């Protein structure tokens, strides 16, 4: 069974700030981690602690665990407090006075909030609910502290989407989860993946593989771009399923350089022999890695493929389909439905229906406000989320032999 996860030295850590923004920090031992206006704390104080704790930062960078608030939402913009003229003039503390409070090291965030609330001239007129809302708003502004987030797929996906949704091709947790289910990702499976999101898809699949099986990454540049994996803090074992080939190496193995030859005798005797041998060893190792991955890929019989790419899937899917085993899923994501529409029509017309019932699905997780007495869908929701086409590779009775031979 999985170990109880704790914060490790040198890991990437996602922290939730009182502003509800997420900040990524590196937990370098024996350093101070600064959260700007939300305070600073010592990295050693959190190493070895479980994920999910919330801390307030006190004097001298000390952190104190506090109870997470059960109601940790700010109400969405519902105009139910219309009677109150909630403008800036209602606040009787000046901006300078509040700043002075904030600079006073002897006053904690909670106290500032209380002072600010007490100084609000209309505060008594507010409904109980509005008071709470006001308090939460002020806490966001003045509290010093953070919550240690567990590096889960939804947390990381949301963080990346908020930072730059285009970089991850607009994918959201709902679509990504659906991809993992439709692709039937489990420990020990052998999957092909095309991932132009910087590694989010690879990471999500790796997490579900638990260090068993093979994940063949097909990439557009010389090396795969898998930066996103670092947020997941994978162990070497969890990373072990990854193999990779560039598209050139995968689809045109005949163009691969031959096995590096022994260097000429001169290279060894001219005094640089040691370096040359090392270089050779490196080149040999790299060649061997590619050679093995190519043999693996060409052997076929893969347990499914997941394509999330900036290249037209109409040109990708037919190229890799012969290497996918029968009754195994083909799952393609695109930020625009029209891209998958073309793919679907192409599959229907072009490849003798080797994909059973390709279906395009849109998935959105519609979030609700959960405040007591105030339940409703969020007034605004982020767009995006993309589209997923999925189907199963099948073997039409009349091309069975052909399909088989393509994969010898």
């Amino acid at each position, binding site marked *: 069974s999985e170990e109880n996860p704790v914060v490790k030295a040198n890991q990437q850590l996602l922290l939730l700030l009182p502003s509800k923004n997420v900040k990524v920090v590196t937990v370098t031992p024996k350093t101070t981690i600064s959260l700007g206006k939300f305070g600073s704390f010592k990295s050693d104080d959190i190493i070895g602690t479980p994920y*999910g704790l919330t801390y307030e930062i006190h004097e001298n960078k000390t952190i104190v665990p506090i*109870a997470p608030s059960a109601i940790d939402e700010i109400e969405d913009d519902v105009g139910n407090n219309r009677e109150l003229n909630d403008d800036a003039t209602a606040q009787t503390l000046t901006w300078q006075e509040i700043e002075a409070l904030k600079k006073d090291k002897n006053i904690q965030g909670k106290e500032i909030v209380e002072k600010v609330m007490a100084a609000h001239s209309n505060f008594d007129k507010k409904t109980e609910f509005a008071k709470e809302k006001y308090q939460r708003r002020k806490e966001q502004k003045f509290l010093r502290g953070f919550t240690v987030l567990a590096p889960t797929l939804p947390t990381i996906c949301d963080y990346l989407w908020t930072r730059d949704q285009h970089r991850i091709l607009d994918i959201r947790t*709902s679509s990504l*989860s659906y991809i993992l*289910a439709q692709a039937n990702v489990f420990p020990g499976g052998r999957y092909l993946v095309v991932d132009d999101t910087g590694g989010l898809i690879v990471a999500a699949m790796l997490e579900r593989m638990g260090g068993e099986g093979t994940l063949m990454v097909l990439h557009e540049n010389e090396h795969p771009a898998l930066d996103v994996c670092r947020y997941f803090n994978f162990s070497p074992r969890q990373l072990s399923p990854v193999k990779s080939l560039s598209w050139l190496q995968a689809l045109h193995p005949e163009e691969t350089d031959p096995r590096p030859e022994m260097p000429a005798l001169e290279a060894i005797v001219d005094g640089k022999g040691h370096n040359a041998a090392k270089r050779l060893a490196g080149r040999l190792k790299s060649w061997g890695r590619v050679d093995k991955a190519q043999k693996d890929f060409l052997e076929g019989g893969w347990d499914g493929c997941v394509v999330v790419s900036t290249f037209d899937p109409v040109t990708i899917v037919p190229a890799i389909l012969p290497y996918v085993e029968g*009754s195994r899923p083909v799952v393609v994501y695109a930020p625009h439905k029209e891209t*998958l529409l073309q793919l679907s029509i192409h599959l229907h017309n072009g490849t003798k229906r080797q994909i059973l019932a390709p*279906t395009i699905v849109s998935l959105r997780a519609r979030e609700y406000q959960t405040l007591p*007495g105030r339940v409703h869908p969020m007034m605004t929701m982020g767009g995006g989320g993309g589209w997923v086409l999925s189907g199963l590779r099948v073997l039409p009775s009349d091309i069975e032999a052909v399909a088989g031979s393509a994969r010898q």
Partner: protein
Amino acid sequence: MSVFGGYKKTISEGDLVLAWITRDNIQPIIVTPGKIFNNRFGSYHHEDMLNLRYGSQMLSKTGHGFIHLLHPTPELWTLSLPHRTQILYTPDIAFVTSMLALKPGSKMIESGTGSGSFTHALVRTVGGTGKVWTYEYHERRFEAAKEEFIEHGMLGDGLPLTITHRDVCKEGFDIEGETLDAHAAFLDLPAPWEAIPHLSRVISKKRQIRLCCFSPCIEQVQRTLAALRANGWSDLQMFEIVHRNWEARQTLITPLSSAIDRLREVRDKRRLPPGEARKDLPKKRVKEGEEGYDWRAVSVGEKEVKGHTSYLTFAVMAPGEHEEVGGEGEDVEEHAG
């Protein structure tokens, strides 16, 4: 290893094969030489399935119909279930799995078992190193699920699944002789607020615990939220998965000029003396995508859209001590902080 967490290449005797007739008609078959699978388009002899690769298209003896012989997966299994019972579908299952942060090694509580559709996905996801405890109150449903799990190689010695016949609302989740220390829980119950107070006894205190309650009605969500607050759960979130299936089609692009041409034709015909050829040319039926015509690729939504499955309420329990407190939370004051 269950067939729901592993793949085979070819079909052997005794294998579970899913025969795909249409998207709405997927039939499970245990391959038994001598048996025949019949549907209204033809007959299929089990022995002819032997040694075929999964995914093969199989023609009926008459050659008129065909089926596809598919490898079981939790997703296909869910699709094959009769739709009349309340099932968890893949879009919800997939989202819940991610939100509960399930992965190989996870230790998971599920109640009720219901049709077992989620259980199949859970067993696949937690793998050989995880645990799934599932509880079902309804006796007949418990027996059916148990039998099915055994048949599917999911239940048995050394396997990660446990099924218990139990009303968890009254009796809780404890299992004699076992320390659950679960990581996550999923409650698909009419009154999850009755079960929530029992969770604290069986969840790990060393880590963050995630919970999902699946409720069709909003009133259930409201009571659930109150109970969660009263029992120390935080980070309450509620979602609905809105999903829709689309199919690609091609429609004919008809320019306005064709209407004008036809109007001219009709006018010219009327100008002919009565009696002379006035009959319309028969309209040719064009096949979708036929060459020589302009086509537009369009997406067509399903006819019958699943408007709602259930509300998904999520909550988190921070690591640490959590006592049995709070009850069902019905006395919680509205707007309480």
